[in-house]
C-alpha cells in the first residue's frame, strides 16, 4: 500500500460543497513528505523497506489521522455553516409543525363549538316560541269587541320561508296564533262588516312570551241619512230608482277612525256626486249644495253607512215631503 492509499483511508465521505482538488492536494503533500522521509532513512543506511516504513511512520504518525485533520481544518467552516443552516431549517420546520398543530386544534375546538351551538339551536327556538293574540275593538281601542275580523298572519320566521296563518276573531274579538316561530310578521285584516282591508307589521322576538295586541277597526256606524232629492219636480206615483255608491277610505287618528266616502246619486235626471266626511256617531248628510239645489228630501232611516250600501246597490226611493 502506497503512502497516498494509506492517507486516503482517513477521509470521511465526500461532501457536496467540498473543493474538487482538496483531497488530492492533501494526499500529494503528505506523500511527498513521507517519500522524502523514507529516502532519508534509506540514505542513512537502513536497507529493509519494512524497517524504513516503520521508522518513517513512527516519526510521522498516522497518515490517515493527519489527512483527516487537514481535511477537517479545510472543511470546518463550510460544514459549520451547513449545520447551522440545517439547524435553522429544523427549528423552522418544528415551529411550523407546532403552529399547524396548534391551528388545527384551535380549528377543531371552534368547529366543535359551532356544531354544538347548531345542535342546540332548534331546542332553544322551541323553548322560546312566542304566542300572539290579537284583540279587535270596533272604532277605537276602548271600543266594543269586533267579531268576524279575518286575520292573516303573513310572516317569515328567522331564516325560514314565508308562511301564512289565518284566524278569525271570536265573539270577544280575539284571534289567537301560536305558538309560532319568532320572526318578522305582517297582519292583514279583512272586516266583512266595514269592507276594511288593512295591513300592519308585527315583529315577534324569540324571547317574547305570550303577547296580546289590541287593534282598533273602523266602526260600523248606524246612521240616519237624509238626502235631498235631486229631482226638481218630483211627483211620481211610482217609486224611482236611486243608486248610492259608498266606498269610504278609513284612517285611524286619536284612537278613532275617520272615513272619507264618495256618495253618488243616480236618478232618471242624471248622476250626482258628493263627498261624505264620516266619524263615529255622525249623522251622515250630503253636502248643502245638493240640498239647496234640489228641494225634495229623501230619507233613509237607520241606514248602516257601510254594510247595507254596496257598489251599485239599488234602493227603492220612498216618497218624502215635497217642498217648493
Amino acid at each position, binding site marked *: 500500500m502506497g503512502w497516498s492509499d494509506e492517507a486516503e483511508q482517513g477521509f470521511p465521505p465526500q461532501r457536496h460543497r467540498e473543493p474538487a482538488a482538496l483531497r488530492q492536494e492533501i494526499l500529494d503533500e503528505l506523500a511527498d513528505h513521507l517519500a522524502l522521509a523514507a529516502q532519508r532513512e534509506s540514505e542513512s543506511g537502513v536497507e529493509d523497506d519494512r524497517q524504513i516504513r516503520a521508522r518513517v511512520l513512527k516519526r510521522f504518525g498516522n497518515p490517515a489521522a493527519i489527512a483527516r*485533520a487537514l481535511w477537517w481544518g479545510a472543511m470546518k467552516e463550510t460544514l459549520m455553516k451547513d449545520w447551522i443552516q440545517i439547524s435553522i431549517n429544523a427549528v423552522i420546520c418544528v415551529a411550523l409543525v407546532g403552529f399547524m398543530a396548534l391551528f388545527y386544534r384551535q380549528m377543531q375546538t371552534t368547529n366543535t363549538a359551532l356544531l354544538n351551538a347548531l345542535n342546540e339551536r332548534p331546542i332553544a327556538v322551541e323553548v322560546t316560541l312566542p304566542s300572539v293574540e290579537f284583540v279587535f275593538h270596533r272604532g277605537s281601542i276602548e271600543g266594543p269587541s269586533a267579531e268576524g275580523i279575518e286575520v292573516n298572519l303573513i310572516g317569515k320566521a328567522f331564516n325560514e320561508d314565508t308562511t301564512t296563518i289565518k284566524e278569525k276573531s271570536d265573539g270577544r274579538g280575539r284571534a289567537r296564533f301560536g305558538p309560532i316561530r319568532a320572526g318578522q310578521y305582517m297582519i292583514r285584516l279583512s272586516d266583512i262588516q266595514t269592507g276594511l282591508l288593512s295591513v300592519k307589521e308585527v315583529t315577534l322576538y324569540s324571547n317574547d312570551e305570550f303577547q296580546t295586541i289590541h287593534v282598533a277597526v273602523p266602526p260600523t256606524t248606524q246612521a240616519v241619512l237624509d238626502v235631498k232629492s235631486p229631482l226638481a219636480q218630483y211627483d211620481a206615483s211610482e217609486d224611482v230608482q236611486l243608486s248610492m255608491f259608498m266606498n269610504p277610505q278609513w284612517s285611524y287618528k286619536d284612537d278613532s277612525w275617520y272615513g272619507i266616502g264618495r256618495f253618488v246619486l243616480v236618478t232618471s235626471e242624471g248622476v250626482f256626486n258628493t263627498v261624505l266626511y264620516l266619524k263615529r256617531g255622525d249623522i251622515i248628510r250630503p253636502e248643502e249644495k245638493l240640498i239647496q239645489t234640489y228641494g225634495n228630501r229623501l230619507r233613509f232611516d237607520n241606514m248602516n253607512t257601510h254594510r247595507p250600501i254596496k257598489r251599485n246597490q239599488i234602493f227603492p226611493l220612498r216618497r218624502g215631503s215635497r217642498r217648493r
Partner: protein
Amino acid sequence: MDPKLLSGTVDMLVLQVVAPEATYGYRITQEVLKHSQGYFQLKEGSLYPALHRLERESLLKSNWVNADSGRRRKYYRITASGKKALEKKRIEWQKFSVGVNGVLGVPTHGLV
C-alpha cells in the same frame, strides 16, 4: 523536550523558517531540527495543520511545483501579514523568555 513547551511556538518557528525563502513541509522540519541543534523535532501531526491554518489566515501562501522525483511538491512562502505577525511573535517571545529567565535566575544577554 516537553511537547507542551513547543506547542505554543510552532507558528513562530514555521514563520521564521519560511521567512527567508519559499520552502516545503519536510524541509521545514529539517531546518528546525538543524537550527535547534537537534532539540526541536516538529511532529508532522502538528506541522501540517499549522501550515494549513497559517495559509487560511493569509500569513502564508502556497504553490505547487513539480519536483525532480516526479512528485508534486507544495511550497510555502511568507506574506506581508505573515512578516508582521512573525515580528510581533518574536517580541512577545523575547519578553516571555526574559520574564521566565528572571524568575528562574538565568542571566540574559542582549535581549529586550
